[in-house]
């Protein structure tokens, strides 16, 4: 794609800054916090490497719904829940290692497809406010999840292991130890590079996902999603099944979130049965927005940059807060506040920019333009 308009360099810098203001704010905060945190470079890098493996997959699951014009899929927590149910079964059945993860994915997949389909249907009825609806849908399904896991499991859904069941005889305990699958993917192909441990198998899975996304964009379905993302009416009149395609985008996103949550939890090594998914959507959304994505456009580099930046901040801000204010708590509040504010800011900037663009697009129609209907360059172009 080429840029037909050559902007003067000052304007270009300003435009770059305006497009990336979120990234720039985040960078500058982090840049201040890194030295004050007093953490060693190798500690930070190791922690970042681990967090990449843990989180990147989840963030990738946001790409397709953005492409399909549905904004940030806060409903991805539904996928996270499906992954957790898969893990509960893997632990209950005593399936360990990578096989345990595979088993969790296989169990989680049909659940994720079902939940994704439901979410897609709901979001299709809430056009124009998909994000807030997806968010509330996450809350709603949290209740359903709790009902299933806390009341049905062990009562109606057979659970064999007493170790994970509450003493009353049904319901899963608040904390689920994942010792049997703990970091089994990370350890599968561990590469020691100087002082750093690289979980190559996890990276490989993430790389495969990135390849999948690249490939997917080139498919007919991917093209249709891009089209719908830009103009639903035109796509519809061209015969693209709009609603179905939107549902598919959400189903795929939910599936990916399911796998992402399993990867996340195997790295953590234990699971807060009823809380693990509550912040998933928030972290993923913050990461992709910090990476410079908007609600309407997101790329693979956005994901990679965003995960790095967000987690860099999460690593360095609490110790920086402790050193500067004498309280690590302040740092923790600060990084949460930053992440919330970044989401609000990115959404607001996008809405604001959309309006500005719509106005500048009509600029040519304004003013008592003398002469023919269109600016002169039009005529040259057609010859």
């Amino acid at each position, binding site marked *: 794609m080429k840029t037909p308009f050559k902007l003067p360099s000052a304007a270009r810098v300003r435009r770059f800054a305006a497009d990336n203001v979120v990234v720039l704010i985040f960078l500058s905060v982090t840049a201040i916090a890194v030295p004050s945190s007093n953490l060693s470079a190798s500690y930070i890098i190791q922690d970042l490497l681990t967090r990449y493996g843990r989180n990147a997959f989840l963030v990738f699951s946001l790409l397709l719904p953005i492409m399909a014009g549905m904004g940030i899929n806060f409903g991805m927590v539904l996928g996270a829940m499906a992954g957790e149910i898969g893990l509960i079964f893997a632990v209950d059945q005593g399936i360990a*290692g990578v096989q*345990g993860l*595979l088993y969790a994915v*296989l169990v989680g997949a049909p659940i994720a497809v079902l939940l994704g389909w439901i979410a897609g249907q709901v979001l299709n009825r809430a056009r124009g406010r998909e994000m807030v609806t997806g968010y509330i849908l996450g809350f709603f399904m949290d209740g359903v999840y709790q009902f299933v896991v806390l009341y049905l499991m062990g009562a109606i859904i057979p659970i064999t292991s007493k170790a994970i069941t*509450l003493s009353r005889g049904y319901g899963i305990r*608040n904390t689920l130890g994942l010792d049997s699958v703990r970091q089994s993917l990370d350890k599968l192909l561990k590469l020691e590079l100087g002082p750093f441990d690289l979980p190559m198998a996890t990276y490989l899975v993430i790389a495969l996902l990135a390849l999948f996304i690249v490939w997917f964009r080139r498919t007919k379905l991917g093209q249709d999603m891009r089209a719908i993302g830009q103009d639903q009416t035109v796509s519809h009149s061209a015969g693209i099944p709009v609603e179905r395609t939107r549902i598919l985008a959400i189903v795929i996103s939910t599936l990916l979130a399911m796998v992402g949550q399993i990867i996340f939890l195997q790295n953590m090594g234990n699971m807060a049965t009823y809380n693990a998914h509550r912040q998933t959507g928030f972290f993923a959304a913050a990461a992709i927005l910090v990476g410079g994505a908007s609600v309407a456009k997101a790329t693979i580099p956005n994901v990679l940059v965003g995960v790095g930046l967000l987690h860099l901040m999460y690593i360095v801000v609490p110790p920086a807060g402790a050193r500067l204010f004498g309280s690590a708590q302040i740092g923790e509040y600060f990084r949460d506040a930053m992440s919330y504010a970044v989401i609000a800011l990115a959404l607001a900037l996008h809405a604001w920019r959309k309006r500005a663009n719509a106005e500048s697009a009509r600029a040519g129609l304004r003013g008592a333009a003398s002469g023919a209907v269109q600016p002169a360059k039009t005529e040259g172009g057609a010859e």
Partner: protein
Amino acid sequence: MSGKEVAGAKAPRRIALRRVVALALVAAVYLGAGAWALISGKSHTILVDNKPVGGLEAFRLLEVSIGRQEPLELGRGERDKFAVQGQRHRVKIDLMNGTDPVEATIALPYDAKMVLLSLPKLVAGVEPAWEPFETGQDAPAPVADELPEELFGAAIDLAPPEAGAD
């Protein structure tokens, strides 16, 4: 509409057949992977036991390993455990007395969570050398805070404090 371009509409029956085959393949892979994960991922705990049993003497000192795991050293009357996945395992016992290590394969039933493997029996070739092991103890009772936190936290509940006293 888009289907036509792809299928070329030349041989719809062959296409349909291909789809059926492909879907069957997916189903097979799904089930196969599930079965593989279930079987080969199933975890068992093998207690290796160096105690005298049924007239067989315990060994003074030995080194035992299962599969490719790090060997464990057991003195007389000692017991340790291996966590393994899958049902067939190669056990290698080095009696540390200059003789060649003893190797044997054991096959466990799928649903045996924990088995007690008697090493004297294994070396003596008594079949089966293992027996199921029941711990007898139940899961620890959950403490109060094992119930989930409330989603809206303080926001909703909170009956006026003294109302709860009624």
